[in-house]
């Protein structure tokens, strides 16, 4: 088989295949543009089909052949119908085309092959003229528009151009038979390329289609990249309008966002200053329906417009609208509305691409909303912090004046009571002197109370500086001091070495002073006391403890241990005002730890704490 035959087979085979595909496509989505495409291919394919039938069945019928040729010659007019989708075709051109087609038909019907050269040239001229016109129209529109549509139109233009070239060569063959040897293979090749171009242009395969879309998406994303989040938030809508218009070859695009307070859609961005602005009202029309259903919709003709749609379309001179919702999973933000002069030929592609863009922009909007909420929260937090700081400062100055001013009268009370006792004690009887003693004792207690309260307050407001603190060393120094103050007491201190914890040194000192001081105090009755300090593991955590074998406490009252001013012993048994443990608890809690105690009456007590 010669190369030319092979080429012929391939060309014709692919043409038939494409024809079948386009018809299938039409049956799947029944719309005008698909029908036109199918018919256009059908015209080309019919010739091949009929030729095949003739060859196959051996039935040579002039009428069959003629029919095929007639259908083939109808192709340019059908192609013109497709061009009509993009731009109005002038009356003259249409008339010329139709006339040419009818003339060609006349020639074919009336006469027989081979045809006289001038008539052949007439047919060729008609074909080439119309195909050429279509090719130019496609090319012009393809260059003007953008995105996937542009590619497809340019391929369609290429296909038409190549087909015109093929027919031109056939005409040349007819006029100059001598050159058949060279031109025929070239024609075959060109025909094949034309088929492929038409195929890729009108019914592109999935992968090709997705590749184009991907490059558009990349372009869209690239323009947004490299900008700060805040910048992206403010510019995303304008960018969406411009990119949307460009990518699908529309006239203009607007973005309408849902306004919660007004409960309606408001136009927030547009690619054309002439476009409608303000609110989109009304319950009818494609825009409102798309918003309600959260689905992309197309208004093919002005007949499908609602009142709001019509207003928008009129402002830019559009005859068709594509509406794509901007949604994220959590929330629906608004709509992207792209205006076209007339319904695009390859509208599914457009909608798919716009949906991708819309999704990106919706994400950006969601992110911007998140950012602004975060800023709001941060501002709130700062305000609260400032308030807290102010309150703390007030408290500090209050404590300061308390520490100073409350003591002075106390000192006077105590001082003059004592002065009374010393200077006029003889004039008083025993109960009288006793009263004065009680006055003095009370003032001492009050002074201690003030100190403890101040200590408690200071613990709460002071800052926590965490560092490694050697608790063992602290415990040892505290017990040493206690011993020094009361050298007559016999106390055995068992302090585990090397216990180190992470916490605020001063506050931990307060804790140990209180706990060890308590242990010291409550073992005061026993002639020989034992106090322990150490650490153990409790529920996967390190717990520190202070144990003594002193007076202990009833476990039934364990809950009251750490309450401020709570005492489990009478004043006469042990001194103290009940603040110590409350302070300790506050320190431990500030470190994020726990404190608890175990004990039994007259059998000692153990205080555990974690940090």
């Amino acid at each position, binding site marked *: 088989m010669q190369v030319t035959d092979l080429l012929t087979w391939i060309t014709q085979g692919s043409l038939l295949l494409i024809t079948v595909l386009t018809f299938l496509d039409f049956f799947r989505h029944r719309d005008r543009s698909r029908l036109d495409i199918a018919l256009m291919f059908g015209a080309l394919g019919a010739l091949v089909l009929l030729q095949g039938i003739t060859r196959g069945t051996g039935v040579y019928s002039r009428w069959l052949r003629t029919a095929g040729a007639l259908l083939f010659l109808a192709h340019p007019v059908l192609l013109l119908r497709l061009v009509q989708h993009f731009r109005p075709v002038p009356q003259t051109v249409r008339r010329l085309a139709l006339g040419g087609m009818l003339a060609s038909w006349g020639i074919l019907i009336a006469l027989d092959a081979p045809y006289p050269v001038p008539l052949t040239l007439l047919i060729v001229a008609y074909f080439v003229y119309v195909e050429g016109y279509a090719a130019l129209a496609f090319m012009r529109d393809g260059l003007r528009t953008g995105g996937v549509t542009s590619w497809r139109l340019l391929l369609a233009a290429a296909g038409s151009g190549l087909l015109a070239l093929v027919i031109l060569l056939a005409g040349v063959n007819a006029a100059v038979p001598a050159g058949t040897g060279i031109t025929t293979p070239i024609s075959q090749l060109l025909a094949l390329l034309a088929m492929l171009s038409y195929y890729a242009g009108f019914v592109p395969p999935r992968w090709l289609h997705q590749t184009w879309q991907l490059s558009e998406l990349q372009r869209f994303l690239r323009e947004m990249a490299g900008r700060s989040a805040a910048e992206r938030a403010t510019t995303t809508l304008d960018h969406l309008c411009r990119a949307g218009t460009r990518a699908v070859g529309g006239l203009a695009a607007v973005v309408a966002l849902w306004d919660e307070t007004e409960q309606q859609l408001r136009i927030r961005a547009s690619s054309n200053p002439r476009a409608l602005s303000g609110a989109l009202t009304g319950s009818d029309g494609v825009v409102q329906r798309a918003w309600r259903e959260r689905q992309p919709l197309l208004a093919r003709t002005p007949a499908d417009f609602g009142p709001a749609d019509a207003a928008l379309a009129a402002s830019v001179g559009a005859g068709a609208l594509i509406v794509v919702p901007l949604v994220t999973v959590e929330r629906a933000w608004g709509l992207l509305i792209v205006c076209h002069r007339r319904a695009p030929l390859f509208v599914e592609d457009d909608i798919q691409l716009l949906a991708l863009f819309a999704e990106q922009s919706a994400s950006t909007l969601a992110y911007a909303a998140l950012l602004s909420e975060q800023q709001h929260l941060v501002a709130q937090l700062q305000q609260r912090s400032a308030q807290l700081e102010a309150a703390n400062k007030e408290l500090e100055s209050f404590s300061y004046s308390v520490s100073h001013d409350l003591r*002075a009268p106390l*000192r006077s009370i105590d001082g003059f009571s004592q002065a009374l006792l010393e200077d006029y004690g003889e004039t008083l009887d025993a109960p009288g002197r006793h009263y004065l003693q009680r006055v003095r004792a009370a003032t*001492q207690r009050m002074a201690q109370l003030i100190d403890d309260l101040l200590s408690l307050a200071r613990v709460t407001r002071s800052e926590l500086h965490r560092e490694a603190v050697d608790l063992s060393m602290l415990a040892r120094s505290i017990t040493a001091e206690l011993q020094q103050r009361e050298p007559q007491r016999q106390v055995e201190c068992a302090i585990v070495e090397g216990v180190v914890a992470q916490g605020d040194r001063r506050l931990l000192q307060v804790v140990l002073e209180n706990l060890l001081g308590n242990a010291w105090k409550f073992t005061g009755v026993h002639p020989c006391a034992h106090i322990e300090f150490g650490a153990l593991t409790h529920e996967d955590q390190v717990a520190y403890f202070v144990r003594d074998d002193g007076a202990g406490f009833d476990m039934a009252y364990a809950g009251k241990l750490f309450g401020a001013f709570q005492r489990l012993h009478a004043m006469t048994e042990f001194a103290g005002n009940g603040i110590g443990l409350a302070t300790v608890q506050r320190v431990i809690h500030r470190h994020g730890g726990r404190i608890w105690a175990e004990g039994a009456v007259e059998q000692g007590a153990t205080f555990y704490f974690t940090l």
Partner: protein
Amino acid sequence: MGNKIILLVEDNPDDEALTLRAFAKSHISNEVVVAHDGGEAVEYLFGTGTYAGRDVRVQPQIVLLDLKLPKLDGLDVLRRVRADERTQFLPVVILTSSKEEQDLIQSYRLGANSYIRKPVDFLQFTESVRQLGLYWLVLNEAAPGIGSG
């Protein structure tokens, strides 16, 4: 103890009475000059105002200074005392009820010699005063030019 003068700067009359009583109880018989506010203290030390004409070469052996004073604050008095050549080495003992760290730090920073917190317990206070007296009036060697000899 001779005629070493004690300057007591105290605005609270109760505290003043109790302190003087404490001196008496401790057998401190030195002359005690009482200034009732910061301004008065400065006037005494530099011989101005109400104390104009006083022989400024005769300075107290020890100044017991309260912090919270009307008009001129205790720390301001300290500042003035340390700033003047005639009084820069004058022993100043801050005698106050405040235990606030900031007061402590400021006092030492401005050059106080000692900081004693007035206890509420009068007996304790008397004991503190006795020890004060013993130390500053008897044991301590003042800088030359201070006091009358």
